[in-house]
């Protein structure tokens, strides 16, 4: 098969910017593509759910689509899985097209969809056996139960499972065919932190055995923990793409300082920019966000400025810059708008 990575030859344009883009062509020459699509599009009436999405996911990597609810992540991942017909563009998965190789592809991918409700009155092992029967190869019920840590619950009805256990069952159904490529749509939404960690471990195990993962999430922590590369998606388009570290580095600062004033006092952007170590300024609801290169200099200088003016800070928070801050700096909105 050689190293010919593309089944769709027009796939050569890349998003501008980001240090990442310099090493992509290098990687692309070395690694096979698990997923490829160009200008993927799906409009529902006037709603542009997905509006020109370019994606390349390499074999063996964990690729994440990060974005707020309603960004088009689910529509995109379901188009890639051949469950929704795109308006434009053909999707290549594992170097096959859905049109000609649907049966083969269905056998090679594992799927966890959002909000699937499994039959309540079937047990965990009955559900797994049902899904296992759809694949030609013999499946290893015990192994899958071990992987998702559901051995104890194997004879419990689905209705008796907790949210986290249900989600792990969903992932188990995806893993039962020992897929080459695993799709996870918001795998940990609504789970408690412990269940979330357990699922992350399962996903890491799968990757260690050589599997490729494509997931969507609106938790930046999840993307940072699991993904080699992340596409930040908003309004059906990719607005940034790269490894979590590169994306955060694109802010030009490692820390974020957030504060607000008691009074309606204003401190101009120029004054703030003049503080040492400040890389960028953002304002939201009367609060100020500084991205800072050297937070240990920025904060004392800020305090001095506040004292000179006789102002009062009502809150001061500093934290390491994250993908959340990347999203915020790109869109002016939060990933999770509560």
């Amino acid at each position, binding site marked *: 098969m050689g190293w010919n990575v593309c089944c769709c030859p027009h796939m050569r344009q890349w998003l501008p910017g980001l240090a990442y883009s310099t090493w992509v062509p290098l990687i692309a020459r070395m690694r096979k593509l698990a997923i490829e699509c160009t200008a993927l599009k799906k409009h529902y009436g006037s709603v542009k759910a997905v509006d020109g999405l370019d994606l390349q996911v390499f074999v063996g990597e964990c690729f994440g689509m990060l974005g707020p609810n309603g960004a088009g992540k689910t529509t995109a991942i379901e188009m890639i899985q051949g469950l929704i017909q795109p308006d434009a563009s053909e999707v290549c998965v594992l170097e096959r097209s859905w049109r000609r190789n649907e049966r083969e592809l269905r056998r090679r991918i594992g799927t966890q969809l959002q909000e699937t409700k*499994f*039959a309540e*009155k079937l047990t965990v092992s009955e559900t797994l056996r049902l*899904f296992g*029967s759809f694949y030609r190869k013999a499946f290893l019920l015990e192994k899958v139960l071990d992987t998702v840590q559901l051995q104890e619950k194997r004879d419990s009805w689905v209705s008796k499972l907790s949210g986290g256990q249900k989600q792990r069952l969903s992932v188990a159904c995806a893993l039962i065919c020992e897929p080459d490529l695993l799709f996870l749509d918001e795998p940990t939404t609504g789970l408690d932190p412990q269940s979330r960690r357990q699922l992350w471990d399962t996903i890491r195990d799968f990757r260690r055995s050589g599997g490729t993962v494509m997931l969507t999430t609106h938790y930046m922590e999840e993307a940072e923990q699991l993904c080699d590369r992340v596409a930040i998606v908003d309004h059906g388009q990719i607005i940034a793409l790269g490894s979590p570290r590169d994306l955060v580095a694109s802010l030009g600062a490692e820390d974020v300082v957030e504060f607000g004033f008691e009074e309606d006092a204003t401190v101009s952007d120029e004054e703030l920019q003049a503080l040492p170590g400040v890389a960028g300024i953002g304002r939201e609801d009367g609060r100020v966000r500084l991205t800072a290169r050297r937070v240990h200099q920025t904060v004392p200088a800020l305090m001095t400025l506040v004292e000179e003016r006789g102002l009062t800070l009502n809150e001061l928070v500093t934290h390491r810059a994250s993908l959340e801050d990347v999203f915020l700096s790109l869109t002016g909105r939060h990933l999770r708008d509560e």
Partner: protein
Amino acid sequence: MSRISDHPIFQLALCRVKEFLREPEAVFWVFVFPVLLALALGFAFSNRAPEAVRVAVERGPGSSELEAMLRSASEVEVQALDAEDAYDLLRSGRVALVARAGDTVEFRFDPARSEGRLARLVVGDALQKAVGREDVWEVRAIPVTDVGSRYIDFLIPGLIGMNIMSTAMWGIGFRIVRKRSDRLMKRLLASPMRKSHYLLSHAVSRVFFLWFEVGVVLAFGYFAFGVPIRGSLLLLAFVALLGAMTFSGIGLLVASRAKTIEGVSGLMNFVMIPMWVCSGVFFAYSNFPEVVQPMIASLPLTALRDALRAVMLEGATMAGIGSMLVIMALWGVGSFGVALKVFRWE
């Protein structure tokens, strides 16, 4: 992949069977309810044993001889009462006639009521015989209860047909729409499951349940009321099977586009209620006007019920119910064909 138990159709059908059996309410409605209905209606409309005529004898001179004479007669239930009490019972209908002894025996009864006229004839006859009247021309009475023409005989095949219809339609329609709204259908489609396997598994689980749901009502009718099964059991099984497949097709069609349980419930009732009313489950459809008769006869439930009844009560053969089988097959093939065309998988 060698064992049959690993086959997707088997697994899908097995899951369907298990889910059903773990739903006590569903089991009640499919297996217990038809029997209860048959029991209630069977008793309500059963032909009772002929009741004795209830009469009173007014106490007075000669009343005890009169009472003794009547007591020895069959079909008469007699009590001796004081005049006042006796007339009270007559007025309220608890006795049909009051007799008073004397040179001339007097009968008091209400000729406007059939019980009264009957009592007058029966009591008169009994008294005349008791004092020695001979019949000039002998009459021999032979009691007849025609098995196969009672209401319960009419009802049981109708109930079986109705049960086949409801379980096929609800079992398939409800379940498909439920899977669709639970997004489980989409999840199944994301697997390599064949769509044809999915649809076939419904037919398989339907056939599995069919024998029980038909058998229960049939056996109940047979053992509790002696409802006859005059035709071949094999043919009866074939009719039931064809009926189940026909209504599975219709159920699939009804569920082919509905997105919500509420939506499909409305559609189900829209399809089924007219057939409950028209197809002669509870009363003969010959009561409907002449013009609509051909329409009623071409309904699938009418065909199923008529075929079941013909085989059970008249011992009809395949040839005798050919037209009904054709009607069912046409409905089944037609609805299944359309359902496959318009079916929405997600």
